[in-house]
């Protein structure tokens, strides 16, 4: 019996949940839950993917999306501070080896900043699309 159940669950996930995930047909709670799980692991790409699959812009999904934006902004502040400190260290350094190393770190910081701003912009666009849809349906209702 347990073996049968195990197989059933596994098959259910493999055969139903995974392919259905991309269709957006699963309940909003599922996508919000998966987006939150991804966000808990700082996997912004996966969190955004699940949010975009949730077309109904449910309150929980909107909250997760806003939380993603806030986390990106906090991390952006943190990276800006690190970048500033690294830039100051590079300016005061005369050893070419160290300067090269610092410049590599600066490039990584820039890359992190670009990525974070991209994630926040994507989540912002998703939220805005939801707000537009809400306004549109409200106007139609009037």
């Amino acid at each position: 019996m347990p073996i049968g159940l195990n197989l059933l669950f596994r098959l259910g996930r493999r055969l139903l949940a995974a392919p259905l995930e991309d269709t957006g047909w699963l309940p909003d709670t599922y996508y919000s839950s998966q987006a939150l799980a991804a966000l808990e692991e700082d996997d912004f790409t996966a969190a955004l993917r699940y949010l975009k699959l949730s077309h109904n812009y449910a309150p929980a999904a909107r909250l997760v999306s806003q939380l993603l934006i806030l986390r990106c902004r906090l991390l952006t502040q943190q990276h800006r501070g690190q970048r500033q400190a690294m830039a100051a260290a590079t300016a005061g350094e005369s050893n070419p080896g160290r300067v090269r190393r610092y410049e590599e770190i600066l490039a990584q910081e820039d890359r992190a900043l670009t990525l974070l701003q991209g994630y926040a912009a994507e989540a912002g666009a998703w939220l805005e699309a939801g707000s537009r849809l809400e306004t549109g349906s409200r106007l139609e209702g009037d």
Partner: protein
Amino acid sequence: MASPAVSLKGGLAGGLAGLLAELALTEITGHHITTGLLELIGAGVGMFRLDRRVYQAIRDTVQRAQVSETDDYRKVAQRLDELTMDLPELRQTILNLVEAGISAQKA
């Protein structure tokens, strides 16, 4: 009330049988059955506890906003206020959390 009978040997034998069954199934089907089951249960439980998880994630984020050890809730609140100007629902939830934090600090 009679205490429940616990058998260490039984537990070990059960654990070993489960492990062997899992290994055999993985070999036969090529899938990690237990992982799949846990994933599915996790997703199901997560869906039911979504509101509490969102609240917990917001609390974690508020804690992350504390840049230095000397920052008190007012500083954190101010920083969060600036960062959530355009995020209305989250802003309200965080405000409630921070106010609760300030009240706790005063008490």
